[in-house]
């Protein structure tokens, strides 16, 4: 089979197309013939060596396809099942061996491409809006990077719940996308101060929750626009990590809450993983969650996919098709 392998960490050119034997499942694993693989920033971090993994490494953390073989102890899937997963390396390939308890069923209404697009970003948007801070109708949420991969999905879910959504974006084009996803208000943070704008838009009251994947450049101002007892959900650091801070700030800004969630802790059990992915697929099947699959690339063009992702010119999901 064909796979994209990294022998030595480096730039996009560190990824080479190689011919390997189709993997055999260990007792607890299933082998999946991939229909689509998601391209994520975490893949870049592994490629560069910023995140460590044994080499040589087949990249890719997210995919969807059909089960072609199962190990002797794998109970949760059978040959022929359509499945998807996230958080297991090896998806940039024609076949991948995955622990069976990390595979979730994909309903007939959802294509491989759609399933591969939402495993990481869709479940992230879901846990943020339904568990980290369960948004309620009538509440107001600020979503940073509202036209980003998670952002566009989070805006839709928050809108569907009935919350008022304020999104921040960097360009007019992205503002249109965020509005199209259901954002009630969009702040172009390159032109307006999001702190002042959010205060104005909420009549000085502040928002119930800030969903922040930007981190360093937005954190402090985010604390200033929360209502008393509001929640800062910091789930990434695209501008850099938030430095250590004095917790008394949380008191001074109004007895605020801070959490720093990650997806792994919200799909920690098989039960929760299946429930969460099922909820996301259900929204898609019902037409309540629109995906923006911006580009698909043949597997062999993984280098080009990474170059375009890192150029930050894309606004939707990138997929590799084996």
């Amino acid at each position: 089979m064909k796979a994209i392998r990294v022998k030595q960490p480096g730039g996009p050119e560190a990824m080479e197309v190689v011919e390997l034997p189709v993997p055999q499942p260990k007792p607890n694993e299933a082998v999946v013939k991939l229909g689509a693989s998601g391209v994520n920033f975490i893949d870049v971090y592994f490629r560069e060596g910023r995140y460590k993994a044994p080499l040589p490494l087949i990249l890719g953390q997210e995919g969807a396809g059909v089960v072609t073989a199962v190990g002797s102890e794998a109970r949760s899937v059978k040959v022929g099942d359509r499945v998807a997963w996230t958080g297991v390396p090896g998806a940039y390939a024609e076949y991948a061996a995955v622990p069976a308890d990390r595979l979730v069923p994909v309903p007939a209404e959802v294509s491989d491409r759609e399933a591969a697009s939402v495993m990481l970003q869709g479940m992230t948007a879901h846990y943020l809006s339904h568990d980290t801070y369960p948004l309620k109708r009538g509440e107001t949420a600020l979503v940073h990077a509202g036209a980003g991969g998670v952002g566009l999905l989070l805006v839709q879910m928050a809108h569907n719940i009935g919350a008022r959504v304020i999104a921040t974006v960097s360009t007019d084009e992205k503002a249109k996308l965020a509005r199209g996803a259901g954002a009630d208000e969009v702040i172009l943070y390159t032109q307006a101060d999001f702190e002042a704008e959010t205060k104005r838009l909420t009549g000085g009251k502040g928002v119930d929750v800030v969903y922040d994947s930007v981190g360093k450049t937005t954190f402090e101002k985010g604390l200033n626009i929360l209502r008393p007892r509001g929640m800062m959900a910091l789930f990434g650091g695209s501008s850099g990590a938030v430095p250590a801070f004095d917790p008394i700030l949380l008191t001074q800004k109004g007895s605020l809450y801070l959490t720093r969630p990650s997806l792994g802790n919200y799909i920690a059990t098989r039960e929760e993983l299946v429930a969460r992915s099922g909820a996301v697929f259900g929204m898609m099947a019902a037409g309540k969650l629109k995906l923006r699959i911006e580009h698909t690339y043949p597997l062999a063009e993984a280098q080009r996919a990474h170059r375009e992702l890192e150029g930050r010119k894309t606004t939707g999901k990138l997929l590799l098709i084996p």
Partner: protein
Amino acid sequence: MKAIRVEHQGGPEVMELAEVPIPQPKPTEALVRIGVAGVNSIDGQIRDGRLRAVLPFIPGQEGAGVVTAVGGQVKTVKIGDRVAWSGALGSYAEYVVSPEEHLVPVPDSISDEQAAAAMIHGLTAHYLVNDAHKLKAGETALVHAAAGGVGLLLVQMARAIGARLIGTVSSDEKAELARAAGADEVIVFTRQDFEAEVKRLTDGKGVDVVYDGVGKATFEKNLNVMRLRGMLVIYGMSSGAVPLVDPAKLSEKGSLYMARTTLAHFTATRQELLARTSALFGMIAEGKLKVRIAKTYPLAEAAQAHRDMEGRKVAGKLLLIV
């Protein structure tokens, strides 16, 4: 009138009994003849300079008494009403003026001693278990300083909710008090490591919530005794301020939440203040909440009350009888 006056910040001895004029209420204020004043650790922090104050001043933030005069625009109280309050500086005196919206009615079934003893500690315990983290039956909570002023009340309220409660205390004598209040498990932290004990008592799962008024000394270990997505509520810092916090730690330890709360944000509106005090006085009147008054002192002996409080030998509330 007689009052305790502080002319320069320092040890307990800077509190001297003085003869000062009775204050006059402004149009939106009421004048109260104080029956009982509560002694709180914050009074010590203002007295010795850890918190700033405008000199000279009369200490004391909490008390109960009878309205003897009202300003021209006062609507919510009238002369003769029995009232209690927290947050009105100047309560170590025979009279105090307070904005009317800070005064709450005291039912006949509650004595001045009970009312004054319950305002800060009782309202704090109430917002912690009902709002800061809404404790549910079947959850497990860790309460530090479980035989302290807030601790003993919090333990009783948690018990009434049906939660399992683990308390930490410094001595066997305090352990007995915490058990009598309803703690299921008590850790004497002076001879047992609370991290190891909590893990043992929860079979390694950790607690749903930690209520911490200790701060610096307990912070790091607190992060190790919570379940995935557990909540740390810091409401005080008797051991000193918590040092700078790297938000990434909350992620590494299991997508944890932290809040750094203060009572004022949980009694911010008149409606919330009244609802909370009414719930609190109701529990006391029905005998569901026992307020432990450790010792009472004449007003003139305020300095001795501070010495006893700061010697950490008392378990329960200290009051000045005016």
